[in-house]
C-alpha cells in the first residue's frame, strides 16, 4: 500500500515527539532521581527515616517525564516542517513539499516514491539517551534506599562509651561499698549496667548512653536518699546529745539508728558496735531504765563514726558533694557530748523557762 503524505507526516511527527521526549526525559529523570535519592539517603542517615518513608521522596522524580513530554511537544515540527524534512531526506526533489502545498496530482506517484525513501531514513528513537542517565540514577536510588546504614552515622567512638561505662561502674561500686542495698535494688542496678555494656558492644551508642544516664540517675537518687537519711540521723543524734532527758535522748538515738539502717548506712558500723547497740537498747527496753549518759555517748559516737564513714565513701565516689560533708564535719555537733550529763524530770529544757 502506497504511503500517503498525511501518514508519512504523522509518522515523522510521532517519531520526532518520541525522540525529543527521550532526549529530554533521560537527563531530567536522571538528575531529579539522583537529587531525590540524595535527599532520601540524607533523611535515612540523619533523620532515621525508614526505607518506606524515604522511598516516597523519590516520587517527585516522576514529574520529570511529564514535563519532558510537555517540552517535547513544543519541539514537534509543524506539518509543513515535517513535509520539508521528508522532502529533503528523500531526494530533495521538491515533490513532497509541492504536494503538501498543492495537494495530489498526476505527479503523486513520484511523491509516493520519495516518501518511501524518506520513511526509510526516519530518525530512530535514541533509547540510549534515556537509558544511560536513567540506569545510573536508578542504581544510585536503589543504593540510597537499600544500603544498610549504621543506626547513627555520627556518634562517639567506642572508647568514649567504654569510659562512660567505667565511670558509672565506679559510682555503682562506691554506692554498694557505702550502703547496704536491698538485694533487689542491687540486682536491678547490676542488670542495668550489664544492659548498657551490651548496648555498647553492639555499637549502639544511643541506647548505651540512655541506659547509662538512667543508671547514673538511679545511683545518684540512692545516694541522695542516703544523704538525706544521714542528715536526719545526724539531727536525731544531735537531739540525743542535747536533750536533757535521758529517756528522750535514748529514744532519739534509737530513731537515729533505725533511720541509718533504713537508708543502708548501718553498713559502716562495726559488728561489735552494732551488736552492743542492739543489746543495750534491748536491755534498756526490758528493764525500763534508760541508758546512762556515758552509754548514750558511746553509742552515739559509734553511730556517728559509722555515719561519717559511709558518707565519706559516698563523697569519695562523687555521689554526694564533698564540700557539704566537710562543712558538716566542721560543725562537730557531737564533739561536746557530755558524758556526765544527768537530768531529771525537772531539768530545764533548752529554750524553756
Amino acid at each position, binding site marked *: 500500500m502506497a504511503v500517503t503524505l498525511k501518514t508519512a507526516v504523522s509518522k515523522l511527527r510521532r517519531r520526532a515527539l518520541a525522540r525529543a521526549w527521550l532526549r529530554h526525559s533521560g537527563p531530567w529523570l536522571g538528575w531529579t532521581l539522583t537529587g531525590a535519592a540524595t535527599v532520601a539517603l540524607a533523611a535515612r542517615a540523619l533523620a532515621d527515616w525508614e526505607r518506606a518513608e524515604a522511598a516516597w521522596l523519590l516520587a517527585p522524580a516522576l514529574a520529570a517525564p511529564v514535563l519532558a513530554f510537555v517540552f517535547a511537544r513544543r519541539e514537534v*515540527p509543524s506539518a509543513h516542517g515535517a513535509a520539508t524534512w521528508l522532502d529533503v531526506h528523500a531526494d530533495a526533489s521538491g515533490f513532497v513539499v509541492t504536494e503538501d502545498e498543492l495537494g495530489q496530482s498526476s505527479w503523486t506517484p513520484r511523491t509516493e516514491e520519495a516518501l518511501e525513501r524518506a520513511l526509510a531514513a526516519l530518525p530512530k528513537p535514541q533509547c540510549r539517551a534515556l537509558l544511560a542517565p536513567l540506569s545510573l540514577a536508578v542504581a544510585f536510588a536503589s543504593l540510597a534506599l537499600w544500603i544498610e546504614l549504621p543506626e547513627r552515622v555520627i556518634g562517639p567512638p567506642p572508647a568514649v562509651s567504654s569510659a562512660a561505662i567505667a565511670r558509672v561502674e565506679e559510682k555503682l561500686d562506691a554506692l554498694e561499698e557505702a550502703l547496704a542495698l536491698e538485694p533487689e535494688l542491687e540486682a536491678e542496678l547490676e542488670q542495668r549496667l550489664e544492659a548498657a555494656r551490651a548496648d555498647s558492644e553492639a555499637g549502639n551508642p544511643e541506647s548505651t548512653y540512655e541506659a547509662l544516664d538512667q543508671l547514673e540517675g538511679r545511683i545518684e537518687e540512692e545516694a541522695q536518699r542516703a544523704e538525706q537519711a544521714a542528715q536526719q540521723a545526724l539531727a536525731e543524734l544531735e537531739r540525743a546529745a542535747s536533750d536533757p532527758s535521758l529517756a528522750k535522748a535514748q529514744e532519739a538515738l534509737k530513731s537515729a539508728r533505725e533511720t541509718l539502717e533504713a537508708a543502708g548506712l548501718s553498713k559502716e558500723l562495726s559488728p561489735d558496735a552494732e551488736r552492743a547497740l542492739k543489746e543495750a537498747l534491748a536491755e534498756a527496753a526490758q528493764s525500763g531504765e534508760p541508758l546512762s549518759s556515758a552509754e548514750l555517748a558511746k553509742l552515739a559516737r559509734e553511730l556517728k563514726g559509722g555515719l561519717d564513714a559511709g558518707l565519706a565513701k559516698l563523697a569519695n565516689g562523687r555521689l554526694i558533694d564533698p564540700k557539704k560533708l566537710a562543712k558538716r564535719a566542721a560543725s562537730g555537733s557531737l564533739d561536746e557530748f557530755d558524758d556526765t550529763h544527768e537530768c531529771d524530770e525537772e531539768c530545764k529544757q533548752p529554750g524553756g523557762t
Partner: protein
Amino acid sequence: MTTAEATLPSPAEVAKARESAGAILDGLNRTLLGQEELTRRVLVGCLARGHVLLEGLPGLGKTELVKGLAALLGLSFRRLQFTPDLMPGDITGAHVLEQTDGRRNFVFRPGPVFTNVLLADEINRASPKTQSALLEAMAERRVTVLGETHPLPSPFFVLATQNPIELEGTYPLPEAQLDRFLFKVEVPAVSSSTLEQILTTRRAGRAPEHRPAIDAAGLDAIFATLERVHLSRAVAGWISRIVEGTHPTSAHASAKVKAYVKHGASPRGAIAIAEAARAQALLSGKPTVGFDDVRAVATPALAHRLVLDYRARLEGVRGSDIVQDVLAAIPESPERV
C-alpha cells in the same frame, strides 16, 4: 481538476520540454567536449532567459559554445569583440544620413545588439560607458537612440566572456553591472583525455556544424512549460534564507560571511536563483523546483553578486567558497526534527 493539476505542468508537457532541452544539451556537449557542467549551466541560464558571464582563459571554446548554442536554438547570432575604443553606438547602432528619393533622412542602422544571441567577447576591455550601453540593453531588452526606442528581438541572450589574466588596461565590471548577469560561470581547463578526443576528432579544432535542435515554436513551448514549473513556499523560503544569509549583518550569517563579506546578494540574486532553479528542474524532468535544484544553481547565481572585503582577497577566499558555506550553514527547513 485539483489545484495541483491546474498549477503544475503535466508529465507529458514536462517530458516533451525535457526532450527538447536534452537535444540542445546533447548538441552543446558535442560542441564542447568534457564540459558537461558548463554546458548545462549555460543552457539553464538561457532557458531562464538570463545572461551569462563566462570567465576563462583564451582558447577554451567559449566562442564555439555560444555559436553552437545559437545554431542549436535556431536563433540569430552576433559576436562583438570589446576593445577600449569601442563606442556605445558600435553596439546599439546609430542614425545615419541617407538619401532616398532625393530626400535626406536620418535612418536608424541597428547595431550588433539586435540579435537573439550576442557574444560579448572580453567585455571587460571596453570602457565603462560602452559596457553600460550593453548592460542597459540586457536589463531593458530594448535600445533607445536619439529618443527612439527600439525593442530587441526575443529571445535575447547575452553571453559575455572575460579573461581572468592580462588585466592591464581592462575595466572590471562594477558590482551593479555584474548583478545583471544571471550566472557567472567559470570555464575550467579541459582534461588530457578530452584534449586527446579533440585532437582525434576535430581537424584544426573545428567544431561540428549544428542544425537547429528545435524551432521557434519548440522554444516557445519550453518557455511556456517553464512558466508553469512550480516553486513551493518551502523552497522559496530556503532561497530567501540563503540570500539573507549572505549579508554579514543577518542573523543567519555564518562566521565566514561575517569575516569576509562586505555586502550580500540583492533581491535580484534571489530571483535569479528561483528562475535558474526552475530551468534546472525542467531539465531534470520535474514540474516543481526542489532543494537539489536550488543547490545546483546557487553558486553560479550568487557568487558574483557578493562584495568581498580585502581580507578575502588576501586569504584567497572566493565568492563560490562563501556560497558553499552559506548552503551548508542554512538548513532547508527552519524547523528542527
